[in-house]
């Protein structure tokens, strides 16, 4: 369901910076359904990738075979990302807070972490430079605290200062796709609010899974379930080994 909903965030012809995990599946689903002209760019250097199998990692050899271009990583970050060529960046995170700041670095203090997470990778610069970002994360009070333990990838506000004032070119995390609902950033305050519910999920349930008093948007919609074709593609074609669909 999350993969399908995330895929719908992508319009045909857009240039998308694909991250590891579920976004990888969502982007490839979009490419074989409604967005055949989606340009997939991986931080590993594959541009216009058309993977014949679901890439397990973002450096999979199937990303190279048949792609439009393969470039070095200095080119990916400077000539493509910093140059402003990315329409959409996908990000995941262990923690996402009220203003869409994301933590993938540590749970607990940096010097003595309770849990050491992988760190930024390319996420910090994607969050800063992509014209917009879409965040994918499962809903729970631990994953959605009022404030993250460490800001790896900046959202809409940092220490009360808005991202534009800090000099960030991109619009930041406009949508957060969870397993129960879609949250969206409020255009004025930059705060995440409830935008749409999955079938059978109540607003109260979502609010109980978030660490701040979650506001509802003006029209809280209902998310369409995946079509039979989406499910067949996901289960039989894109991810038959359940690399990303587990859980």
């Amino acid at each position, binding site marked *: 369901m999350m993969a399908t909903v995330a895929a719908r965030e992508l319009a045909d012809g857009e240039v998308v910076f694909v991250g590891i995990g579920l976004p990888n599946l969502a982007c490839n689903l979009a490419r074989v359904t409604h967005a055949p002209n989606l340009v997939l760019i991986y931080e590993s250097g594959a541009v216009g990738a058309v993977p014949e199998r679901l890439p397990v990692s973002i450096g999979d050899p199937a990303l190279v075979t048949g792609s439009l271009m393969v470039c070095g990583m200095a080119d990916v*970050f400077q000539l493509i990302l910093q140059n402003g060529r990315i329409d959409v960046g996908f990000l995941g995170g262990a923690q996402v807070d009220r203003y869409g700041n994301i933590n993938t670095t540590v749970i607990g203090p940096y010097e003595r972490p309770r849990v*050491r997470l992988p760190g930024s990778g390319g996420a910090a610069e994607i969050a800063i430079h992509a014209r917009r970002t879409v965040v994918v994360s499962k809903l729970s009070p631990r994953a959605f605290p009022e404030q993250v333990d460490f800001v790896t990838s900046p959202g809409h506000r940092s220490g009360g200062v808005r991202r534009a004032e800090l000099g960030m070119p991109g619009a930041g995390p406009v949508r957060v796709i969870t397993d129960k609902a879609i949250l969206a950033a409020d255009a004025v305050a930059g705060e995440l609010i409830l935008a749409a519910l999955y079938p059978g999920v109540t607003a109260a349930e979502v609010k109980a899974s978030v660490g701040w008093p979650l506001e509802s948007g003006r029209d809280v919609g209902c998310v369409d379930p995946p079509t039979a074709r989406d499910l067949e593609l996901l289960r039989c074609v894109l991810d038959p080994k359940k690399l990303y669909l587990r859980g």
Partner: protein
Amino acid sequence: MSDVSKLMSMRDAVARFVHDGDTVVIEGFTHLICFAAGHEIIRQGRTNLTLARLTPDLIYDQMIAAGCARKLVFSWAGNPGVGSLHAFRRAVEGRDGPRLELEEYSHFGMVARFAAGAARLPFWPLRNYMGTDLPRANPYIRTVTCPYTGEPLATVPALHPDVTIVHAQRADAAGNTQIWGLVGVQKEAAFASRRVIVVVEELVDESVIRSDPNRTLIPGMIVDAVVLEPWGAHPSYAQGYYDRDNDFYVAWERISRDPGELRRYLDEFVHGVPDRAAYMEKRPGLATRLQAKQRRSSGVNYGF
């Protein structure tokens, strides 16, 4: 025809060019990670190393577990698509004796550090890190005011490895090295380094290199040693030669989670073999399972 052969065994290359206390870079982004060199460094018992790489991957997890590392310089420390690097986590979360020292960037930051090192500049500017806690965690991430626009820009310092080890599809004996598929930051890392070891799947004649010069990523003039070590990147991969061993990356979750199991792995597959050929003999069926299919490029006309 160059008559300067730099060809040597992995054992000799590591003995000569990798010393205790060095800053060591074994690069390759998912692709062409030289596990054979990491294993030889473990076998020769190098210690006190500063290990630098964007993604420490399984190879640095193994070197951390083997006690080679004092410090890690990195930007993403996970097992791609699988989960955690558990030896790394134990060393950082402090369950296994002395903590590993960390110097942490993002990918762009690490790429920029290599670019500065390769260009022999003291730092590299980038429009990055505003609103993040990374500069608070790493005081080497600083800012400079642009002298033309007045814009504040982030800076990262040049990285100068003592030795960089690059795995590649092919090179000649003088070290002219050709890579295709994902090229990561190997070129920048090699040019930033004081010494360079190239490890290849195939040793070719200089005429093969000259037939396709655009594919040369690293010129022989910056290379100190050339090592022929087929399958030297396994469980990473070499485009056109063999696929990534994703099953092993998944298995590493179980192996690395248990220090005893990890120790047994190192005993059998690192200390228990003298070189890559012996490592491959211990894994019958591997070559057949991972052998790359044919997808040849059409080639171009270099004539004039």
